[in-house]
């Protein structure tokens, strides 16, 4: 087929996958072979699409909505900044379309509607993607999805047209003209939103979590989240989006973090501008700072000149800001100050360029009366009055008048910003529930967030929605404008928590657990004292500032140790070190991740059981939400471990002790709201690992398991209600089992090791319920896409320390009717114990080996455990990567295997799973909760 098309490069897209899994761009025959093979494996219907490469063409998207009567509208049009070749999900995108004439736009619109008709979409939303040759205007359809898609959420938030909501109503028979436009309240939904602002979406990546993954962007989506920003012009919108991303950048550069890009040689700069990546945009800025012109950058990047001109202007404008010389001078030049803000520069950027502090800039700006006004997302460019308050900040003459709170007290809830590993929609769940509860209790809820993929940024979740970056500057403007009586920082994850102290200093009333107490929990010395006071053990630990100190600490506390940089999220850079010879390397890595920050070292508790406890406190009484026992042992990040409640293996006595500790910590830390504790249990001893006085990742899971909206209750506690008043005074005992299992993005990153470690890697989770532990676990595996076979061949390869435990497990597998394969060592061990296996070679030793089995689809389940924290053996990395790509279920811990065998055994006994609704499960629990 490649020969028929006759040109390189070619694009390969596997059929029936999400986010382009397994696809790629082949520039020659070898690459073509590799990608096609991978694509065929990833495709659910073993099909790949091979097409002419449109690399460098302009990319556009149209969100279409139609009803059963044939009425159809374009909800939103989107133009990608990154040209064709980069997955839309990984592109910076702008709405509405900017560089097409009306003729070209309408022709695209006509064809999008024709596509809907031709595909036979009866009702609902679809998206149609187009590529346009920038030189000739030749337009080609790339794909269409007859369903709501990732971009539907973006389109909904960008326009105020709630695509999914309307699609649901259309599906049950309504027509577009019968449905009201919620935003105006007076016009029908059968219209096309008109935007008088510019929307920018920037993808959020986590390549730092997967250092071995190729950071070049292509047709396979690699981003894990996105931020959206709205501005009155492109520059404002673009800069706001970059600072919404929370990657530490204050906008489009000019924040002191451009050294890497600005110091690149011309060759590197040219290469990096030609190579699509998360950082390309900053190389583009560096090029303009260096004096390269738009045409040169265009030739390299293919980014449309329209966008490049804006980027160039911003890069050059930095000198105009600098020309003010000092903040004092700038203060005197109101029109320049205002122009800077109109260009979207944050106070932080101005501070960097003028060599002062953000606080100084903020004060000077306010003194000259320069504060933003707020525009409204009204769906109609001002033609009709908007009823729904949905705002964005901008610097302009006119702002929407503040809407009266109708005598209600306003409470601000800060969202979590873009999804990333370690901070995902779990926190948005908490924000939403807090909003629901507070609104019900008579408060006016003001929501601030920048993530278009969330429910918190639906215009009907809060009373007033502000689509803003979660920075001190942007948040305080909203706080002041709305005259909020308090701000809740506990629910949005680390993002608002990091702002807590600054908000308090700026005069905001942070309600719930105080910022000081939040900081105290992070203070290791204080925490040590507190643990001693409460009488709980901590793993032996120490702090080091260099490899020598680290070695000393380790000699004192003994190996293995857990080494991690301080002040990081999601276990970033955390490793387990078993021997002194590996220590130095890891300490150096940790130093690189958080330069200048101390390195934390803990004695690693091998084979300990890890626990998560979520509880709620009103400042006096503390009630346990649930104790979760991790399936995987300590050493695997809690976010990556399967968790089970009620705990499986813990004695009542231990559980009671855990509860006591929770109550004691909540009291000492003056917790008002939610608190999460992580503990480890080894040989009957309980060790404290960490306490977080905030909503945790597991709150949604626990809330659903016990049928109690913990986040909602917590928000009410923060406004002064007691748990007594709320009727939540006792831990809920559930007569069933709930399991949470993590979902991983490994399949998107070929070559990256799949082993679980103290660094969190999962991007999602699933939950399952059953009356029985094993069945609940098995359901969770199915839900997570790890469909364990009920018969067939199982390959077992076990690390040495697990070998004694594997014999009874292998026996049970044999009994369940599986055929076992193992490498020589494991095979001999099992043979000696009377278990028959097929012995195969280690990959590096000969053939047939496991790779052959995988290729021939001879193996249906792979069990492969390895030393934690060690540089994984080449063999094992290969095994796991191939298994993931081949879609073969993979179990990487013995604990996981135990749970799976339990489940498979029970399933065989019961013959089926229990299928009940969540409400049916909840019928069995008893609480005094006032709903």
């Amino acid at each position, binding site marked *: 087929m490649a020969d028929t098309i006759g040109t390189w490069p070619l694009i390969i897209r596997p059929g029936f996958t999400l986010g382009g899994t397994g696809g790629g761009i082949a520039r020659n025959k070898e690459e073509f072979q590799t990608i096609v093979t991978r694509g065929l494996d990833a495709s659910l219907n073993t099909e790949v699409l091979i097409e002419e490469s449109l690399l460098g063409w302009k990319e556009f998207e149209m969100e279409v909505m139609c009803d059963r009567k044939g009425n159809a509208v374009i909800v939103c049009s989107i133009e990608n900044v990154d040209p064709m070749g980069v997955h839309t999900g990984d592109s910076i995108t702008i709405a509405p379309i900017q560089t097409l004439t009306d003729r070209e736009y309408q022709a695209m619109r006509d064809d999008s509607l024709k596509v809907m008709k031709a595909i036979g979409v009866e009702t609902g939303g679809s998206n149609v993607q187009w590529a346009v040759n920038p030189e000739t205007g030749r337009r080609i359809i790339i794909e269409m999805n007859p369903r709501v898609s990732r971009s539907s959420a973006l389109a909904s938030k960008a326009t105020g047209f709630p695509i999914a909501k309307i699609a649901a109503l259309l599906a049950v028979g309504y027509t577009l003209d019968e449905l009201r436009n919620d935003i105006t309240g007076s016009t029908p939904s059968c219209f096309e939103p008109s935007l008088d602002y510019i929307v920018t979406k920037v993808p959020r990546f986590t390549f730092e979590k997967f250092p071995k993954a190729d950071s070049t962007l292509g047709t396979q989506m690699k981003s894990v989240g996105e931020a959206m920003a709205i501005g009155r012009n492109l520059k404002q919108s673009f800069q706001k989006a970059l600072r919404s991303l929370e990657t530490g950048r204050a906008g489009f550069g000019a924040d002191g973090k451009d050294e890497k890009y600005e110091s690149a040689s011309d060759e590197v700069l040219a290469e990096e501008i030609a190579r699509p990546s998360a950082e390309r945009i900053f190389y583009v800025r560096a090029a303009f700072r260096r004096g390269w012109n738009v045409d040169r950058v265009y030739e390299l990047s293919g980014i449309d000149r329209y966008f490049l001109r804006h980027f*160039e202007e911003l890069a050059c404008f930095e000198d105009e800001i600098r020309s003010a010389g000092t903040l004092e001078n700038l203060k005197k030049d109101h029109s320049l100050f205002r122009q800077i803000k109109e260009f979207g520069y944050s106070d932080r950027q101005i501070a960097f360029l003028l060599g002062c502090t953000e606080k100084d800039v903020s004060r000077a700006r306010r003194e000259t009366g320069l504060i933003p006004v707020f525009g409204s997302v009204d769906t109609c460019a001002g033609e009709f009055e908007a009823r729904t308050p949905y705002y964005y900040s901008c610097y302009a003459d006119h702002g929407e008048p503040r809407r009266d709170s109708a005598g209600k007290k306003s409470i601000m809830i800060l969202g979590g910003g873009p999804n990333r590993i370690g901070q995902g929609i779990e926190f948005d769940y908490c924000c939403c529930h807090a909003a629901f509860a507070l609104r019900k209790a008579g408060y006016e809820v003001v929501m601030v967030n920048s993530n278009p993929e969330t429910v918190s940024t639906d215009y009907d979740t809060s009373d007033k929605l502000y689509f803003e970056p979660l920075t001190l500057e942007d948040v305080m403007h909203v706080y002041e404008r709305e005259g909020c009586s308090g701000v809740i920082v506990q629910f949005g994850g680390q993002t608002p928590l990091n702002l807590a102290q600054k908000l308090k200093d700026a005069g905001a009333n942070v309600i719930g657990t105080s910022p000081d107490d939040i900081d105290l929990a992070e203070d290791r010395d204080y925490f040590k004292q507190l643990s001693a006071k409460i009488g709980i053990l901590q793993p032996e630990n120490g702090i080091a500032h260099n490899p020598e100190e680290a070695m000393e600490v380790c000699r004192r506390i003994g190996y293995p140790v857990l080494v991690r940089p301080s002040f990081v999220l999601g276990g970033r850079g955390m490793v387990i070190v078993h021997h002194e010879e590996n220590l130095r390397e890891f300490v150096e890595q940790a130093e690189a991740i958080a330069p200048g920050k101390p390195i934390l070292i803990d004695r690693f508790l091998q084979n300990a059981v890890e626990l998560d406890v979520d509880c709620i406190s009103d400042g006096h009484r503390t009630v346990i939400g649930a104790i979760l026992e991790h399936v995987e042992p300590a050493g695997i990040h809690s976010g990556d471990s399967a968790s089970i409640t009620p705990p499986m293996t813990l004695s009542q006595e231990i559980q009671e002790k855990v509860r006591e500790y929770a109550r004691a910590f909540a009291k000492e830390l003056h917790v008002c709201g939610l608190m999460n504790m992580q503990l480890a249990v080894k040989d009957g001893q309980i060790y404290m690992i960490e306490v977080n006085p905030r909503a945790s990742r597991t709150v949604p899971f626990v809330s659903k398991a016990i049928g109690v909206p913990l986040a909602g209750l917590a928000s009410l506690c923060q406004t002064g209600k007691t748990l007594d008043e709320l009727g939540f005074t006792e831990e809920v005992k559930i007569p069933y089992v709930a399991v949470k299992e993590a979902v991983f993005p490994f399949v998107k990153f070929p070559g990256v090791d799949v082993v679980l470690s103290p660094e969190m890697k999962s991007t999602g989770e699933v939950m399952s319920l059953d009356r029985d532990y094993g069945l609940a676990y098995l359901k969770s595996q199915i839900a997570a896409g790890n469909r364990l076979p009920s018969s067939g061949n199982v390959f077992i390869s076990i690390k040495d320390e697990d070998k004694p435990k594997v014999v009874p497990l292998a026996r049970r597998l044999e009994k369940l009717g599986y055929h076992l394969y193992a490498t020589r060592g494991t095979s001999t061990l099992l043979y000696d114990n009377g278990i028959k296996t097929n012995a195969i070679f280690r990959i590096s030793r000969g053939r047939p080996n496991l790779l052959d089995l995988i290729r021939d689809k001879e193996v249906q389940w792979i069990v492969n455990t390895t030393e934690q924290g060690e540089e994984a053996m080449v063999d094992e990395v290969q095994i796991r990567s191939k298994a993931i790509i081949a879609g073969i279920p993979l179990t990487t811990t013995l604990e996981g295997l135990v749970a799976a065998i339990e489940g498979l055994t029970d399933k065989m006994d019961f013959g089926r799973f229990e299928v009940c609704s969540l409400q049916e499960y909840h019928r069995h629990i008893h609480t005094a909760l006032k709903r």
Partner: protein
Amino acid sequence: MPSYMWKEKREKKAFLALADGTIFHGVGFGAEQDTVGEVVFNTGMSGYQEILTDPSYAGQFVTLTAPEIGNYGCNADDVESRALFLNGLIIHELNLPSNFRSEWSLDEYLKQNGKSGIFGVDTRALTLLLRDRGSQKAYLHVSKEPVDEKEAVRRAQEWEGLDGRDYASKVTCQARYEFNAEGRFHVAAYDFGIKLNILRELAAADCRVTVFPAKTPAEEILADNPDGVFLSNGPADPSAVTYALENIRKLLGKKPLMGICLGHQLLGIACGATCGRLKFGHHGCNHPVRNLLTGAVEITSQNHNYALQKLPDCLEMTHLNLNDNTVEGIRHKSLPAFSVQYHPEAAPGPHDSQQLFDEFRKLMEK
């Protein structure tokens, strides 16, 4: 480094003075001449060149609510008439072009055609003002001749306005001409400010079109014996185009009639309908209109300040604006004549309503 005019952008020496005394500051571009006219806003997100060349905007300043303008430049093809008829363009941000069809930047285009523009204006503020207070008379100052703001406001107030003014005769062609020499049907089109895309659509519907100046007597049209007569769109107030009303009455029943926009208003008034001014008019590309005969909703392109209100018994309403329930289309109950307020020819705007030209053809077939 290109010239960014940052200083000029800060100084904002040009301004738009509204008759109500409000001043909007900005930066002048295009031709350097002051003008007076009526300010309206258009919510379409693309199509500024079509708007610039639409004769219906004669006497008006058009405020574009889309914030970034000029992005795709201007070209020789996307024109809707022989010239630029509006008084001036009011925008938020002015960009250099980036589009394979672009021949001139927006600034160059306005300069070449002797029209002024102002950018850097808070167009949302202006739009909301127009929405709340209605269309406004205004004075646009972009020239180097200094004008006092108060004086500018006075000039705006003193301007005669569009109500009761016949602008059709100002924009119509001087003599009859042919468009599309071949075609099954012969259509006589009254040019009250006709858009080229109407002619293109008629041609696509297999019509040979003869375009006549606005004041051409009905007798002259009938002497040509066309298969149908088309009443075009056009600027300003239909009640002032009295000569057209007389001609339409003479043609009604003798030839199938189709009207668009001003032509629709004229047909309605000629049949006895009343016509009034809308507060700020309809100008945009996203207005939902229900076809009352089929129930279907079309997303339409619109540009009008006046609308038919009370219809006589001989007329039937065929189209309804779903935003504000105004009359969007009529047909005569017994005679072959129909018209729509919106623009089925689009340009700019969606092509949902092109089939109306086929309906005209069907009327001519009978």
